[in-house]
């Protein structure tokens, strides 16, 4: 890759990462609201719902980073296997 292409690629990567984190925000609200909102007798989240939203959001974030870790493991293993396959 030429430096210009590299720059282009990195820019694409960065814009994709920005898109991902915005999408993740929406996704998180969607999931946790769906999971946690139980009644519509008040216009505010009640104590139980608030607690639920907090736990849900934190769990989702922790889970996502664990998924990233395992995903990375699998991709690295695949790359290794491919390299070994090429050498043979």
């Amino acid at each position, binding site marked *: *890759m030429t430096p210009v*292409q590299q720059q*282009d*690629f990195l820019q*694409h*990567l960065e814009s*994709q*990462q920005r*898109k*991902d984190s915005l*999408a*993740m925000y929406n*996704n998180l609200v969607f*999931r*946790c609201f769906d*999971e*946690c909102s139980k009644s519509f007798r008040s216009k505010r989240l009640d104590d139980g719902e608030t*607690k*639920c939203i*907090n*736990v*849900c959001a*934190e*769990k*989702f974030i*922790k*889970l*996502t980073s*664990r*998924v*990233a870790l*395992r*995903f*990375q493991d*699998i*991709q*690295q293993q*695949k*790359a290794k296997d*491919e*390299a070994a*396959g090429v050498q043979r």
Partner: protein
Amino acid sequence: MSWFGNSEPEPPSGPSPMDLAKQEVDMYSDLFTKMSGLCFKKCVVKMHGESDLNVGEMSCVDRCVSKYMEAQEKVGVILKRAEESLAAQQGGVGGPAAGGVPGVPGR
């Protein structure tokens, strides 16, 4: 990550290697978003108590990721086969899109 390694040299026509690399980035990021969402749905059942993942949830996530990736590979193989038979039916006119199914090792 592996997408740098497994892009084969392309013939001069068709999408550029850069386009393919970008498409692969997009594809993996979509895969990741979908996988995280699904594994969350399948592995985290109760939202009260601890905000840390418990042991059961952790091992569930690990298996979920591994299974999802396996499913991705299996579906990729089937899709590739279908594309190939379609291409054969059409007498090779057009053929499958260059690059085919990303993340699937060629046979």
